[in-house]
């Protein structure tokens, strides 16, 4: 298996002093951008929101007219993708909190997507971002369904994981919605049923209102055009699912990205944290429209370094991050979409089979000391 990185970087670890210098340079970059936030960023997100809503209104209207089915479905897909990728995900990171606009406040924003905002803020903003690619902590490593790392012990169930992956891609919205419920831990009786029910309630509520809207209310309003509206909504949701799945999996699993054991991430310095974020992420190269449709997750590395910096800023800071990585000899993984996707899919297939060397099978896992304990998933 050949490892593809865009530039050959010496694979050696940084000294503590180098790591600290690296951290200071990244911190300075972040501060510089945060100082500069203002009108431009506000205008960008407002314009994006306006476009998204226009596309949604136009899409839903077109679906009421059967000959316009394809156009309606396309517009609705576009609006659904923008809402989750470029607006919801980024706003919920608090990227636009500086605007002091109650409608765009990260801790209150509720996106048009089945996963309840509060649960997302916990599993994504906290677990995934703080513990990126730490097997056993970051549940985005395989979503409790797929084996994506050596550190995950193999069992025969994983043989079918290419099929699971297809299922997860098609129903990604549902997969993310039940992510927080940790069904696998409930089945293993590691999570109490009471806790499960408590977590499930908001999911059921949100999911039913999402399903009602797309599959009952709008088709119902359309009268004789109901089947067209229904199928258009279904298609748009499935297309969004596949797209989101592809983008998100491309962000952390192409060749060159690393996963970590709990002990490796325990007690790491801020510099080492930065390093892990970079090593665990991969960028996608492409035209501007692609970046927008990925919600700028095409700059996964920059996003993981600075999750609360407005995403539209990532393209402008990426060259600097890349230069810093080169300077310090840190691998910066980046490639075109098709290549990253191909590598990710290959990885799904490869890890369906047991690893050739059973080297890294973890035994007893020590718990990671968390930087800041969050009491409940509903913490704002």
């Amino acid at each position, binding site marked *: 298996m050949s490892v593809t990185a865009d530039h050959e970087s010496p694979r050696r670890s940084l000294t503590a002093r180098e790591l600290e210098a690296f951290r200071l340079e990244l911190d300075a970059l972040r501060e510089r951008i945060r100082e500069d*936030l*203002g*009108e*431009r*960023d*506000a*205008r960008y997100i407002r314009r994006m*929101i*306006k476009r998204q*809503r*226009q596309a949604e*209104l136009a899409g839903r209207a077109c679906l009421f007219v059967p000959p316009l089915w394809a156009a309606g479905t396309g517009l609705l897909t576009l609006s659904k993708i923008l809402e989750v990728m470029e607006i919801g995900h980024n706003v919920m990171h*608090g990227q636009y*909190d*500086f*605007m*002091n*606009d*109650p*409608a765009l*406040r*990260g*801790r209150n924003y*509720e*996106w*048009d997507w089945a996963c309840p905002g509060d649960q997302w803020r916990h599993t994504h903003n906290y677990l995934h971002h703080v513990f990126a690619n730490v097997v056993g902590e970051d549940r985005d490593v395989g979503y409790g369904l797929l084996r994506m790392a050596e550190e995950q012990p193999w069992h025969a169930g994983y043989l079918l994981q290419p099929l699971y992956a297809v299922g997860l891609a098609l129903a990604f919205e549902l997969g993310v919605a039940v992510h927080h419920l940790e069904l696998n831990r409930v089945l293993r009786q590691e999570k109490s049923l009471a806790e499960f029910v408590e977590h499930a309630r908001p999911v059921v509520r*949100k999911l039913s*209102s999402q399903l*009602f*809207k797309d599959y009952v*209310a*709008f088709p119902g*309003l359309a009268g004789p055009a109901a089947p067209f509206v229904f199928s258009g909504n279904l298609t748009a949701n499935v297309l969004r699912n596949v797209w989101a799945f592809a983008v998100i999996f491309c962000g952390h699993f192409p060749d060159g990205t690393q996963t970590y054991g709990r002990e490796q991430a325990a007690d790491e310095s801020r510099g080492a944290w930065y390093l892990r974020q970079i090593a665990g992420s991969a960028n996608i190269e492409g035209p501007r429209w692609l970046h927008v449709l990925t919600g700028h997750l095409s700059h996964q590395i920059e996003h993981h370094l600075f999750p609360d910096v407005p995403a539209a800023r990532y393209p402008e800071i990426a060259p600097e991050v890349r230069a810093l990585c080169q300077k310090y000899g840190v691998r910066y993984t980046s490639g075109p979409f098709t290549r990253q996707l191909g590598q990710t899919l290959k990885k799904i297939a490869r890890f369906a089979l047991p690893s050739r060397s059973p080297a890294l099978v973890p035994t007893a896992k020590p718990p990671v000391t968390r930087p800041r*304990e*969050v*009491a*409940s998933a*509903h*913490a*704002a």
Partner: protein
Amino acid sequence: MLPQLRQSLRPARRPLNELLRTRVVSALVKPRRVDDYLELIDPLWSVQYVRARVVRIHEETRRAVSLWLQPNELWRGFRAGQYVRLTISNRGVQYSRCFSLSSAPADGLPLRVTIQTVVDGCVSEWARQYVQVGDIVEVSQALGEFVLPHAVPRRLLFITGGSGITPVMSLARQLTHERFTGELYWLHYSRDEVILADELADLERTLPGLRLFVHNTGRRCGVLSRNHFSEEQLHRSVPEYRSCEVYACGPAALIEDVTGLFRERGLLDRLQVEHFLPSRRVPIAGQQACRVEFQRSAVVSTGTGSLLDRAEASGLLPRFGCRMGVCRSCVCRKISGVVRNELTGRVSTEPDEDIQLCISTACSDVVLDL
């Protein structure tokens, strides 16, 4: 096409709003709000908030700007002397500030606010440089108790300083419209140019009972204190001030002097004051360190300062506006503990009370629902 649609929908907006507020419609747009889509058609259109279009801008003095605001149909009207909370966006950041309306209800729409611009003020900067005719702002419904009683007293005394003239101008304009025939004394203090000076001059013609005294308190006028408010000066201008209903609005020092005098004379029940700046600078320092727990966020602060500062220092982002205890944007439920309102000195000891974060400090360990 859009302007025509906007135009033709305008008369229908009121009945449409009723429909748009129903649960059926909100289920269709959930988790967004109806407003989020209405603003695509017309940025003024909302079923929830009063939004207003800036229709005219006039520089009153070098340091004061009047804006005329045409609100949408959700505006419920106001009484002379009331204020609104204005929410604007400057350089991408939203700010809310309270401003008195300087027009009178009888003037009709658009409303007028007169904004005194201060150095370094974000809203001031906006009002001086960035606002343009056609901009959309958000306004609250009218707030405040600085109003005339329904039976207007026959003898009135207004004491105003600087931009404190604005709500009182509203009162005076309303009196003019109502053809007030009683006595009206008005003492105005100004450091430099008088805001709304032309209108003040007009009032002398249209309000027959008005006796106006304008005092310049600027440094150029020799002895600093000579023109400032004092009992002697009040007595000289308005010998019968004890029998007047008094409305005072102005800078903290003026309001303190006026309140002090009327308290001494036992006339406080005749005095109505409005202050838009805290009557004293909130002294938030040197508090002993009390533990503040932000319960919902599961964060504990052990620092000092206002609860808002402490929440922010702990990485939280509570809603806030004026940061001086006026706009109540930052009101938060206190679950337990003792906090002092540094503006009023009032101490809140009861559990489950709403407090203003920006002007409250902890006097004991406190738990907040934040």
